[in-house]
């Protein structure tokens, strides 16, 4: 797969649509990398762009992204012997490492974290909250989103801005699939409450 100049966000991020056969093939590649570090090159080639785009959406800076991406793959390579297959692509494990690296960087540097999203994603959340999709509500939603805690924002990004399935979100965030669903709905309720509260004030 070669990404076009106008890279599709969903294509670049979503490496999770795999058949059982593809997952088994990938598992063999992981086992080979466990035995021989040079074989990790296959996984590096396969997921470099996905991880780069994932990190870039959260930093907005190319050089910083390159640095963090390299750290992600180094950590993955060093710890690959601890990797356990959980029925989702290897990329979910890489995204988890990436998320930890990103969070660690922003906690240490105290810089403002970037959240990348598309207008359609905002419309999607507004529709889920059973409100009218208009410019005012989009502004209100951005205000509500900015008040979310780190773990809540992480869930919204993974689910609504990147369209990931709950099974993968579970692996990335280190919780079960059901727990991810429950937490997601709580965040949605919180956002609905914030939107309604603001509208009531106005």
């Amino acid at each position, binding site marked *: 797969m070669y990404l*076009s100049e106008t890279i599709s966000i969903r294509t670049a991020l979503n490496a999770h649509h795999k058949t059982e056969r593809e997952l088994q093939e990938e598992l063999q590649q992981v086992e080979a990398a466990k035995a021989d570090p040079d074989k990790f090159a296959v996984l590096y080639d396969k997921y470099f762009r996905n991880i*780069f*785009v994932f990190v870039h959406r959260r930093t907005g800076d190319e050089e910083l992204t390159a640095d963090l991406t390299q750290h992600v793959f180094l950590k993955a*390579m*060093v710890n690959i012997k601890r990797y356990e297959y959980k029925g989702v692509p290897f990329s979910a494990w890489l995204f988890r490492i990436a998320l930890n690296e990103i969070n660690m960087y922003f906690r240490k540097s105290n810089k403002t*974290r970037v959240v990348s*999203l598309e207008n359609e994603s905002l419309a999607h959340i507004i529709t889920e909250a059973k409100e009218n999709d208009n410019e005012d509500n989009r502004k209100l939603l951005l205000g509500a989103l900015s008040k979310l*805690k780190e773990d809540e924002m992480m869930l919204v990004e993974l689910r609504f801005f990147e369209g990931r399935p709950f099974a993968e979100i579970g692996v990335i965030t280190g919780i079960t699939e059901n727990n991810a669903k429950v937490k997601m709905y709580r965040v949605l309720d919180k956002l609905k409450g914030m939107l309604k509260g603001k509208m009531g004030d106005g």
Partner: protein
Amino acid sequence: MSYKFNINNTTPSAGQIDRHKDFKKLRANYEEAVKPLYKKKLYKDMRTFLVVLIILLLTYVLVEVFENEDKKDMPVNKEQNK
């Protein structure tokens, strides 16, 4: 944590991303990361170097303190003093 929202921002192109891809560098970093401590050049890792330096200094100070205390505790030989 504060957030900055980037709406409909463009993602780097495939060419831009691939410029940062370097498996050889990653392989070299991996070798350095998994190298046993005794094979690492301490002066290259400032943190390890400082830890070792502090341990050595503490050991030196402790040895000095105990040696001085031992000298104080020794009985004074009166005949020698005369």
